[in-house]
């Protein structure tokens, strides 16, 4: 304590040091957020000019728009399916890589690589992999014509999107979960094995409870991230189609605001989405977070 105060002799000095960073956060986060909330109460012309205060009319309109709810519904379905898979798949891989089996060390390295690939690039690659004529499903399509076509069938497009998201989520969640598994003392397994617990029993009763903090972290990050980070994938794989089947809320906001120049409509939806994400994270902490034991 003493060394700290002697380093920062002046009480304002530490604040001065963080000021540039705070300024950036305010400029590039809080100001736009405020702007979005502000515009959501106005009818804003794209090039400025007069804007009319309309109170809650934008919210009324958006909340009574079936398209908004359809996009929200798709967002929730995506969140539940893609985020769950994006945690469960890396969890299985991490448990496998944690065991002393051949190539597990190599796998630990290779599985981290996708982290270095940008979302848009993943999108382009997956669009090719799932192409109905030249991709992975092409042989199946040859047997059953019309079975798989993400360009026509909305469900196929949605599955493609989930697949790409899960794949892109593997490295980060894998690292977190593997770190959790590696930190469990070996004596625990040995004790469990001595007591006659088989591998499955050890996973369920020893490993999973002990990596709960890590699982919780990955779930919270995945649930909140999946809502916004899926944008690059949608933009490159499906463009929101076919028939709007992959227009999740975040993409709808982009299309309305940036392609349709509907600033007020996009701002209103942004405000709603932001509140939704905050509530979601709050719920997770409130209902799940308190039950997690961080002590070992």
């Amino acid at each position, binding site marked *: 304590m003493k060394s700290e105060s002697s380093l920062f002799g002046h009480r304002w000095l530490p604040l001065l040091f963080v000021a540039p960073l705070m300024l950036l956060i305010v400029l590039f986060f809080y100001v736009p957020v405020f702007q979005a909330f502000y515009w959501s109460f106005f009818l804003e012309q794209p090039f400025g000019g007069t804007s009319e205060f309309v109170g809650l009319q934008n919210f009324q309109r958006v909340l009574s728009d079936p398209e908004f709810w359809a996009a929200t519904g798709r967002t929730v379905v995506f969140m539940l399916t893609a985020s769950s898979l994006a945690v469960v798949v890396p969890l299985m891989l991490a448990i496998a890589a944690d065991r002393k089996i051949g190539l597990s060390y190599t796998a630990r390295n290779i599985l981290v690589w996708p982290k270095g690939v940008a979302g848009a690039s993943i999108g382009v690659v997956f669009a090719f992999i799932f192409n109905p004529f*030249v991709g992975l499903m092409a042989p199946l399509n040859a047997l059953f014509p019309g079975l798989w076509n993400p*360009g026509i069938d909305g469900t196929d497009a949605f599955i493609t999107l989930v697949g790409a998201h899960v794949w892109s989520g593997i490295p980060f969640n894998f690292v977190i979960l593997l770190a959790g598994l590696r930190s469990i003392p070996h004596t625990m397994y040995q004790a469990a094995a001595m007591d006659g617990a088989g591998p499955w029993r050890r996973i369920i009763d020893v490993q999973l409870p002990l990596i709960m903090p890590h699982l919780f972290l990955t779930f919270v990050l995945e649930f909140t991230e999946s809502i916004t980070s899926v944008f690059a994938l949608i933009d490159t794989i499906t463009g929101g189609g076919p028939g*709007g089947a992959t227009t999740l809320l975040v993409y709808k906001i982009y*299309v309305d605001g940036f392609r*349709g120049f509907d600033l007020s409509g996009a701002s209103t939806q942004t405000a709603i989405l932001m509140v939704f994400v905050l509530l979601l994270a709050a719920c997770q902490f409130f209902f799940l977070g308190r039950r997690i034991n961080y002590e070992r």
Partner: protein
Amino acid sequence: MNKFTLAAVAAVMAGAGSAQATNFEFWYGNTGPVETAIKAQCDAFNGSQSEHKVTCVGQGSYEVSMQKAIAAYRARNHPVLIQFFDAGTLDLMLSDAVEPIQDLMPEVKWDTYIAGARTYYETSTGKLFAQPYNASTLLFYTNKTELEKAGITETPTTWEGIIEAARKLKAAGHACPFVTDGDTWRVLEQFSARHGLPIATKHNGYDGLDAEYLVNTTFAAKHLANLVQWRKEGLVRLAADTKAGNYTAAFNAGECAMMEQSSGSYAAASKAFDGKYQLTVSMAPMYEGFQRHNTFVGGASIYVMKGHDKAEIEAAKAFLDFLRMPEQQMFFTANTGYVPVTTDVLDAIAKSDEANSPKYATAKLGVESMNQPGTPDTRGIRLGFYVQFREVFMEETQKAFSGQQTMQVALDNTKKRGDQLLRRFEQTYKGKKLP
């Protein structure tokens, strides 16, 4: 190294000394061969004189260019000239951010612009709002070699003829007789225009912001329902049905035998067909019993943005004058497949020794198509949030193509959602009058 590049190099060397040159920016959205041609024109302008210097900035797409222009305008940091596409016409007209071109340059002979190109960008008093730049229109392409293989010797000119040909092609084992992407511009806008059908009341919005969509009640609804039926029969294919995944590529590769596409596609198609297939291109097909009207001008035009000093405006005017010159328009047409839209250029092409060259093939045809007799409903589209409407139309009709709903339900939904957009646009620009 072409002469434009040489001119550009000369300009850089000459320009080094002229410090007083007025610099100004021009933002465009095209990429590929069109971008190359635009850059060449910029270099040629800078090389032709030392008084003004244009900096041409490619933004990657029309939408991105517009997004940045909106942000830049709000920050008072916007370019003098910006190119923007057909669907955003009304947004810019009401924006108060652009200077009507004909007010700014009253001395120019604007009546050389053909009617089909004028009416789209004209105010209610008949003044041009923007200078048409890269103009295109819808044409009908066929792979003559494939058609002849199936025993079709005459290029069809009607939808009835196309379907008859498609049946023959299918019977001959052809997997993709006719291909389209179902894009709003192609299957609704250009279809309605040439059949003389309105897209919305108030003459597509020209007579007021309180227009309402009519797409679910006109003959266009019947045509769209036909497309769904023909696709089921295997006569019409959508882009996603093709191996290429892109309908133009599918046609160019010989996978599909007929397509409706912009005149701007001609250069690529004739290059791809070279030595393999014979290409025909003609005006877009009509249903029997309908009189042919003009097609809309597609592509984009150039707007002058407000808030710049006199010197910059003068420089921009000089650049616009330069782009209007027949030799510049001919260069642009020859290199991109876009259509020249002034009569003097058409005359110049006819008089040149390359009048029958394939690089000018679509110019005559495109102009002919845009010069067909018009009605108040074929002037253009002046509807608010129209870019969003195009998205809505695509979304609803795709659901009809995949069988989730009938085309009539899709178009009823399109009308309903489209009208909501129009009402909100009306409220957003409350108290503003159409120029």
